[in-house]
Structures are given as C-alpha cells and as structure tokens.
C-alpha cells in the first residue's frame, strides 16, 4: 500500500532537529524521526504507522561513524548503517568488538543493511532485533538528545516493552556506546525464512580464565522470548560456576535458559517451541563464543 499523507521536515543540524521535535511535540503534532526508514517506511506503507510529521535526520552526517575513545569504549553514531558495521575494517572495529560485525549478517538482507541504521533499529526496539540484543548483552549506553539536554541511558533502562523505549517523543537517539570489549561473544538466531525477524535470538558473552579453557563467568541474552530483549541470570549463574568449557557446561547453560524464560505463543511459534529454540540457540552461541 501507499503511506498516509504526512508533513516532511529535513533536519539540517542536530539542534534544529531536536528543536523541531520539541516544538511539534508541544503542539501534539505526533512527530516521528526518520533515519534509514527500513522499519518505519514499511510500517507506514502498511499504515500500521501514520505519523503526521516526519523529521528526516538522514543528512546529519555528524551522527554517522565508528570510533573508539581513550577508555577503549566503542562509539557508533546513530546513523551508521548495518552494512558499514558489517564492512568496518579491523582498525575501526577490532577483535574485541567483532561480535558486532559478525551479527550483522542476521539483519535482514544486503539492501536493508545498506539503508537501515544502528540507531533506527535501537529506537524501533523490536524484541528480536540484533542491535537491541547486543546492546542488552554488552551493557551498551544510549546517548539521547532532546528538549531536556543530553543524557546517557543504559540499555537495561532503555527498552521498556514491545516497540517501546525510554526515548521521549521530543528526543533523538544520537549514539550507542559499547563500553568494553567482548572478545568471546557471539549472536545466533533462528527465523522461519532467511532474513526474517528471528523467532528467537540468543547472544552469549563468555569470560574465560587465563588458561583459555575455564569459563569464569558470562552473560546470556535472549530476544523473542519476551516483550523486550532480556538477560537470563539463571543461565549466567551456570557460566559463573567456574567449569571447563565444553558440551556439558554449554548444555547446562542452554537448559537453564530454557527453564527460566516464559515466552509468548504466536504465529511464529508456540511458547514450548520457543523454549526449545532458546535452549538450542544458547548452546550454539556458547560454542561460537568459545571458538573465537
């Protein structure tokens, strides 16, 4: 279908964009931020979304790019595309953050990844989206600009539910910061068709002891089992036991994750099916993370 009519605004600079959002929101004009548009335009074509105003931030080149700061934290500008991350050279995106690069192959298809943006995906907050899962797994911080100034929101406080975030209607996500390296992390998922949104997605970040074989801790995050991406403390407790990496440990971790979650049932899969997927995918993610 064709999208419903709206008023188009092209932002020239960040302050102009936030001023406009504040102004439109004050008039209850229902503005929506347009970045790459790979989720929003599809929803508008379906008329699932009918914003009265679109603020196109696509020209704000200051929001594009990848850099590492003096503390070793990786900064991704909100308008950085999935494909830019996928193709980022090692000097921009080193081994410690390779999980981000490798996860991009799960994001839609190439023509979606060339236009879709990191910030757009996070702000859209699909419960199975790769960026939402990665941000949750790796304690990312989301940098937000708005009428109230600039603030940093931890991922754990950013996602609130289905397509719902802590972003105010007059706020703009400008950057996501991954504060630390995760050299032994992996994301994997299952979708009924290649490139679709995942039915369940799993991501694991292992902490290995100096011997390279003992798992001394780690994080486990799942998408598609709740209204937002979730960490699974029960599965993380298994990783914290100090066992040797291997089939027994990873199977126990997967089992703990499956028992801990209470997934929804819908067309893509029943709760029981999703629980079995969670178990299988956590085991796979553990194996891939350890193999790094």
């Amino acid at each position, binding site marked *: *279908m*064709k*999208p*419903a*009519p*709206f*008023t*188009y605004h*092209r932002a020239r600079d960040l302050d102009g964009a936030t001023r406009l959002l504040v102004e439109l929101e004050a008039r209850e004009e229902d503005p929506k931020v*347009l970045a790459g*548009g*790979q989720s929003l*335009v*599809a929803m*508008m*074509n*379906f008329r699932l979304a009918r914003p009265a105003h*679109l603020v*196109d931030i*696509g*020209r704000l080149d200051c929001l594009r790019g990848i850099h590492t700061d003096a503390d070793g934290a990786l900064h991704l500008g909100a308008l950085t595309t999935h*494909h830019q991350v996928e*193709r980022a050279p090692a000097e921009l995106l080193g081994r410690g953050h390779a999980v981000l690069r490798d996860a991009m*192959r799960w994001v*839609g*298809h*190439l*023509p*979606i990844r*060339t*236009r879709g943006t990191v910030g757009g995906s996070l702000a859209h907050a699909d419960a199975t989206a790769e960026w939402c899962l990665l941000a949750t797994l790796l304690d990312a911080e989301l940098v937000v600009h708005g009428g109230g100034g600039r603030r940093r929101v931890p991922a754990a406080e950013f996602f609130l539910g289905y397509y719902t975030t802590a972003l105010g209607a007059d706020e703009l996500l400008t950057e996501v910061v991954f504060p630390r390296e995760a050299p032994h992390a992996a994301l994997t998922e299952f979708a009924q068709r*290649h*490139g679709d949104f995942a039915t369940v997605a799993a991501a694991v970040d292992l902490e290995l002891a100096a011997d390279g074989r003992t798992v001394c801790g780690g994080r486990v995050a799942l998408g598609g089992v709740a209204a937002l991406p979730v960490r699974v403390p029960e599965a993380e407790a298994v990783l914290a036991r100090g066992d040797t990496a291997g089939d027994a440990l990873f199977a126990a971790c997967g089992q703990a994750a499956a028992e801990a979650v209470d997934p929804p049932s819908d067309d893509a899969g029943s709760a029981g099916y999703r629980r079995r997927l969670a178990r299988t995918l956590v085991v796979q993610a553990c194996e891939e993370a350890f193999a790094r």
Partner: protein
Amino acid sequence: MSQITHEPPDRQLLTLEVNGEAHEVLVESRRTLVDVLRHDLGLTGTHVGCEHGICGACTVLIDGAPARACLTFAAQAEGSAVETVESLDGGGGGSAPGRRLSDLQQAFTEHHALQCGFCTPGFLMLAEGHLAEQPAPSREEIREVVAANLCRCTGYQTIVDAIEDCAARRRAATSEEGPCN
C-alpha cells in the same frame, strides 16, 4: 454538522539524480522513490512488488549500494545518485533498438536466469551493487546476497550461475587489460 476541511497535501520540490541525469519533480512528501521513478520519471523498468521490503523487485542502487526503492521516500534520495535497470548498457547507443544488453543482462539470458522476468530488474541491480563492492564473490556469497530478492520461476540456481559467470568474465577482462595498459 462538522465542517470537512481538506488540507493541501505536503509536497516537495526535489532534484533527483537518476542514471546520471538531474530531474526536477514536484511530488507529495509521501511519494516513495519507486513511485517517482515509475510515475513521475517514466522509468518503469524498476518494478513494484510487495511495497514493504520483502520481495526486492524495486531494488535500485543509491550511491552505488543496492536499496529498496519502496522503503525510501523520494525526498530521502535527494542529493544521492540513483541508478536503475535503465542504466545498464552494453553499448549500441541510447534507447534505440540497436542498444545491446549489458554483460550482466547477457549472462542472465545465457544462463536462463529469468522466466517471467518480473523480478529480473531487481536481481540485476542487486548483483551490480554487490559486484561493485565484491568483484570476486564466492558462490556461497552470491547465494547469500540473492536471498534478498524473491524469484518464483527459476529456483535461483541459474541466477547464481549468471552472476558468478559475469563476475568471472569481468575479472578475466580486467586481468587481460593489466594494471599498466
């Protein structure tokens, strides 16, 4: 009785660079790039399938990268170089009957990589975009890339064959020319 008011639709005066030519169009803001290409510029080679980014029939190049023209508002493409299937040219002059197929189009023909042809413009632009970035793709990479678009006739094998063959011929042509010629 409440008064019905019709606000005039929000419009944009856009300059779009399509296939190397600048076009000025005055269109509703909600007009997608694919509709501007087809309805305002008459470039009907780009097809419209699903209008929600699944089928890939509308794939064009935006600044050299394959993109869904149905998931891009025309206003977003202003300032970018758009290339459609009409840009593919094997020589022979303009749009005259003498114009030849491009090497990629020729490879699609030779390998029977199309039957009904509806999806073909999208596949061609997808392949052009990928080969520009990766001139020596593995068969597995080509399979991964063409998974982006739907074809209900061929079963994909022949499309993969055509792209692989075209890439190999381009590489052979480049190495024959040599870096110093």
